[in-house]
């Protein structure tokens, strides 16, 4: 069985961008939402209606709403910008969180389903938005993006 490989742009740009997003957000590891943000910087994904700034606002909004639901008001403070040392993946030089790992697994399944030998950014996006629960679907909902419709367009 032929092994699916990461496309060059995913390997060298998307994951690198995701690492930067995680670092900026103060995450200890790359999360699924970091992958989504990194993907939205790609022109072929951006053309599907995913805007980086809009997603950032939606993610911040999601966090504020989640905390407000239990009566927590977040003080604004600067994230340190220095990520913690976590278990590192050889791919990134930074840990992959479970949500990101699941997204990658689903992306691999998507690409192998259609018989592709390469995992492209579109496959990765399919893997990221396939999550039923978590920050990504909540943020997409806040941003007013219909996931089913987005999937059909991909």
């Amino acid at each position: 069985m032929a092994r699916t490989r990461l496309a060059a742009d995913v390997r060298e740009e998307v994951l690198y961008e995701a690492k930067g997003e995680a670092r900026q957000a103060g995450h200890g590891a790359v999360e699924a939402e970091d992958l989504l943000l990194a993907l939205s910087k790609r022109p072929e994904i951006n053309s599907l209606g995913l805007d980086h700034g809009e997603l950032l606002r939606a993610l911040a909004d999601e966090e504020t709403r989640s905390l407000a639901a239990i009566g927590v008001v977040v003080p604004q403070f600067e994230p340190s910008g220095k990520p913690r040392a976590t278990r590192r993946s050889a791919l990134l030089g930074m840990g992959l969180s479970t949500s990101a790992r699941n997204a990658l697994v689903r992306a691999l399944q998507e690409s192998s389903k259609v018989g592709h030998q390469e995992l492209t950014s579109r496959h990765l996006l399919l893997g990221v938005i396939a999550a039923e629960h978590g920050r990504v679907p909540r943020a997409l909902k806040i941003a007013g993006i219909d996931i089913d419709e987005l999937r059909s367009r991909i």
Partner: protein
Amino acid sequence: VAVPTTARPARHPLERTFLLLIYRRSGGIGRRARLRALWDVVLWGFESPLRHQPCTHNHAIRRVDSNRGVDSCRRGEGLPAGLNWGVTAARRVAPSGGREPPYGERTCEQRFDVPPPTPTNPVRNVKLTNGRQFPPCTRISCQYRLRGPQSKNRQLGLTDGQASTIVDTMTVKLPKNIEEPEEALAAVGALRRLADRLEDAAVEKAIEEGWSWAQVAEALGVTRQAVHKKHARRL
């Protein structure tokens, strides 16, 4: 003469230990070869019917069947006079009347003059007249020992007398405006991320101000190794 055992007398804390010895009717571990010459002198000959192990039943008085020389340990039965081995009778003090036991040997009832506990009024809630809380008694046989509702199911000798102190207020109820578990779980995730960010910022500030890793770890309640592993690389 059977001695009533319904009310237990005040006992020395070590009496349980002594009684275990008393309840052993012959020897400790088997019969001594040096006393072999005496074996056929005794009533029962070589095969001793007497108990060689201490009795672990929780009762004060033993019955000895003097006809057969067999002792039996039946709860609530008395020890015939003259077969009390001269020890148990001296330790048995009537709960009322007779010799007044020393303060340390008095029961909690005698010491504190409080009503016995009831299921609705457990001992721990009893306030003494001087305002102090009733001190817990840890004596195994004491009826004023702290007991929970499950005390009947506890083993007498192994379980600590202290009842569970888990406080109900530790449980957190979800706010009423949260209707779906998804919202609550999202809040949990958000709180975790917030705590992580806050910890990063706080540790960074502490290290900048010259705190040692040991001090930071102590303040966070984790080991020095843990905090160092988490933050040393990025700081």
